[in-house]
């Protein structure tokens, strides 16, 4: 907040229309860029249009189509972008996809070819359902944490799941096991959601609030819902408690029967957990115990750093009593947001035509959707699924809970993944990184805005100075792009393409491909966790001329950024981003 707080300067307000960037460079731009590219070997600053065009020129200069091939004529640090116009790959097809697997259903070469292919051109729509779980690491280390009643069987299961880090090296049989377990896990979460919803029925928020203290005192003795998790336990006093505020004795009694397994599924960053266990040399079992303890910060057994952070930020936050958001609030907002999803997105669902009114209404009732009378059956169905998954996520990751914008990220996944449990785990995979965008302390956002700012600073000092002059060098104006990952600026198909490329990059890093071998890509434009940020910076740089010459306040730049919807060319963005990665990845 401190970094974001700014004195927005004068509100020079009149809207000046911006010259709209064409969605793809016209032929003459390419022609011109050929000249540009041949006359200069390094572009120090990006011209508004010359940039992507020069990449096209670079591509045209070479007949080779290997993304990593070196071209001396290129002005892009010697590496041609896999996303330039001429080099653009076709998306991964069904035939190709099937070809990537060996007879036991294992991806050949640890998924290198697969990721490279997706990175270059995305995925064909008809196989997204199959491919996304791989991209999003759904079958990777399970994120488990638990409360009490941790019986041997679940412990074993969790251990098995955790050790089966089969990500891109899994066989089909292994994946089926994981899939089944994950389905059960999801259903468990849903049962909890369902219970909370129905035990709160008929009582307004106020009633729930009043029950807060009572609930807390009960949790000391019994473990009713296991929803309190980090936030409740770290809350210093019952009076300050603003966490889950739903429960009375009556409800708890009801819970006992329903909640057959009180093990708790909560977000634990698998990579943090993994490195902790390997660094400290503890066994998996100890590690698990530690995790379960660390979720309960009253007993401090040297919890992992992850939990220390989350617990302290949460308790600080509750102590300050700044944002009393709780599960009940999240449930309410999730329902409000779900019914106002962009209908065009839901329209793209595969099974849209199959959704009968009856089916939709049944689902809507079961998740407690409201005010949906005006919606078409497929929208009601879509909204209900959104509610189900978001709610489960809020339980799963109580540090984040629900924040507006998350439904933007989930909607495309709901459209692509037909099963809720698959959508949920894909979403979890997506949120592994994106969750930092929704943290209350805005650490994640601030870090990312800073990177965007640094990219611009290094690439285009002239533009950067202009931004400084307008007190806009913190790049606050790209906030929305960062938070919802271009979802509001791009069309459905474009969004999915960008995300797929981004996920492939992130998956490559997780699989260690970026660090080991990926032919020459490694040297020139390695996969980056922050591809999105490079794309955002590229997007700003594409408007540099406009910003420098026409805009004299942050407000104007923000308005420009907010009105980019439908005007961006995702491949051009990626192409420009590639250039930035090549030049700057080791400097940022």
């Amino acid at each position, binding site marked *: 907040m401190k970094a974001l707080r700014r004195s927005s300067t004068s509100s020079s*307000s009149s809207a000046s229309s911006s010259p709209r960037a064409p969605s793809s460079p016209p032929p003459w731009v390419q022609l011109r860029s050929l000249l540009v590219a041949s006359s200069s070997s390094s572009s120090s600053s990006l011209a508004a249009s010359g940039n992507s065009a020069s990449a096209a020129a670079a591509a045209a200069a070479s007949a080779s189509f290997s993304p990593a091939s070196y071209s001396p004529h290129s002005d892009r640090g010697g590496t041609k972008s896999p996303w330039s116009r001429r080099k653009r790959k076709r998306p991964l097809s069904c035939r190709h996809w099937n070809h990537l697997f060996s007879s036991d259903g294992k991806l050949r070469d640890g998924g290198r070819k697969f990721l490279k292919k997706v990175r270059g051109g995305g995925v064909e729509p008809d196989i997204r359902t199959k491919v996304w779980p791989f991209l999003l690491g759904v079958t990777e280390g399970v994120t488990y944490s638990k409360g009490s009643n941790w019986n041997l069987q679940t412990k074993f299961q969790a251990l098995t799941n955790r050790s089966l880090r089969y990500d891109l090296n899994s066989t089909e049989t292994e994946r089926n096991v994981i899939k089944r377990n994950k389905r059960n896990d999801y259903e468990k979460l849903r049962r909890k959601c369902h219970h909370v919803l129905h035990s709160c029925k008929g009582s307004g928020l106020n009633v729930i609030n009043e029950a807060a203290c009572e609930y807390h005192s009960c949790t000391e003795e019994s473990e009713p819902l296991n929803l309190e998790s980090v936030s409740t336990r770290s809350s210093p006093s019952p009076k300050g408690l603003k966490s889950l505020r739903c429960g009375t004795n009556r409800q708890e009694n009801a819970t006992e029967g329903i909640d057959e397994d009180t093990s708790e599924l909560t977000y634990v960053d698998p990579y943090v957990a993994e490195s902790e266990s390997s660094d400290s040399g503890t066994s998996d079992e100890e590690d698990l115990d530690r995790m379960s303890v660390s979720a309960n910060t009253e007993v401090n057994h040297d919890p992992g750093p992850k939990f220390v952070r989350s617990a302290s930020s949460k308790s600080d936050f509750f102590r300050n009593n700044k944002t009393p958001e709780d599960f009940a609030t999240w449930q309410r907002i999730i329902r409000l947001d779900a019914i106002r999803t962009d209908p065009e997105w839901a329209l793209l669902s595969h099974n849209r035509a199959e959704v009968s009114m009856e089916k939709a209404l049944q689902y809507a009732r079961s998740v407690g959707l409201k005010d949906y009378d005006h919606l078409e059956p497929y929208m009601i169905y879509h909204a209900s699924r959104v509610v189900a998954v978001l709610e489960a996520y809020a339980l799963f990751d109580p540090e984040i809970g629900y924040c507006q914008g998350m439904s933007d990220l989930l909607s495309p996944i709901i459209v692509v993944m037909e099963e809720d449990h698959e959508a949920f785990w894909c979403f979890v995979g997506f949120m592994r990184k994106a969750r930092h965008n929704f943290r209350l302390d805005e650490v994640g956002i601030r870090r990312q805005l800073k990177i965007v700012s640094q990219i611009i600073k290094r690439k285009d000092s002239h533009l950067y100075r202009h931004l400084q002059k307008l007190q806009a060098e913190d790049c606050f104006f790209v906030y929305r792009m960062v938070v919802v990952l271009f979802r509001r600026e791009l069309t459905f198909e474009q969004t999915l393409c960008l995300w797929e490329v981004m996920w492939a990059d992130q998956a490559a890093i997780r699989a260690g491909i970026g660090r080991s071998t990926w032919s020459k890509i490694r040297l020139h434009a390695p996969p980056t966790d922050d591809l999105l940020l490079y794309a955002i910076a590229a997007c700003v740089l594409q408007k540099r001329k406009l910003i420098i010459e026409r805009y004299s306040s942050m407000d104007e730049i923000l308005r420009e950024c907010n009105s980019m919807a439908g005007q961006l060319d995702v491949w051009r963005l990626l192409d420009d981003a590639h250039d930035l990665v090549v030049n700057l990845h080791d400097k940022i």
Partner: protein
Amino acid sequence: MGSKPPPPPPSVSFKLVLLGDGRVGKTSLVLRYVNDVFSDKQEATVQASYLTKRLVVEGVPITLSIWDTAGQEKFHALGPIYYRDADAALLVYDITDNDTFLRVTKWVKELKQMANKDIVMAIAANKSDLVRSKHIDTHEPASYAESIGATLFVTSAKAGTGIDDIFSDIAKRLLEKRKNSSDGLSPAHPKKGILIVNDEPEKEPPPKCCS
């Protein structure tokens, strides 16, 4: 200055910020006012969006720069960015949900402390179309509004009622304030947020001055 005879008086610009809980209808109010459209599937605002509206009050052309903010409490921290030098705040709540009114009172407290001292405030009791009875009881909110020097309007973005009224009320009060504080509307008085504009924004870039 004038392309159309007779030359119009210079336009005065004000910054207006919309604040209120999530899904009370902030974006819908603005879109109804500026573009005269309504969608019951309006997506949640992330961060903020920006629109301008021109109107003429007592012969003076006014440009309202309207900042529409995200409602969820999580985005509360972004509030200062928008209300910092706002001339006016339009606080919106959902007439069918008392909690959203409480949120308005929270915003008012914050504005009193943090925003311009002379910020003009108005409260919109939105979604009146959802209230079945013809008599809408706004006794309490209205007296609250009076106590803080704000005006309260019952609005419905869906039905399009009360919206022009509330925005022109704000504009009138802004103009009065400006008149009282500066003996006129001379652009030479370089107050923050004032800007001379002369043409339709979408068609031609305006001349820049006195930012």
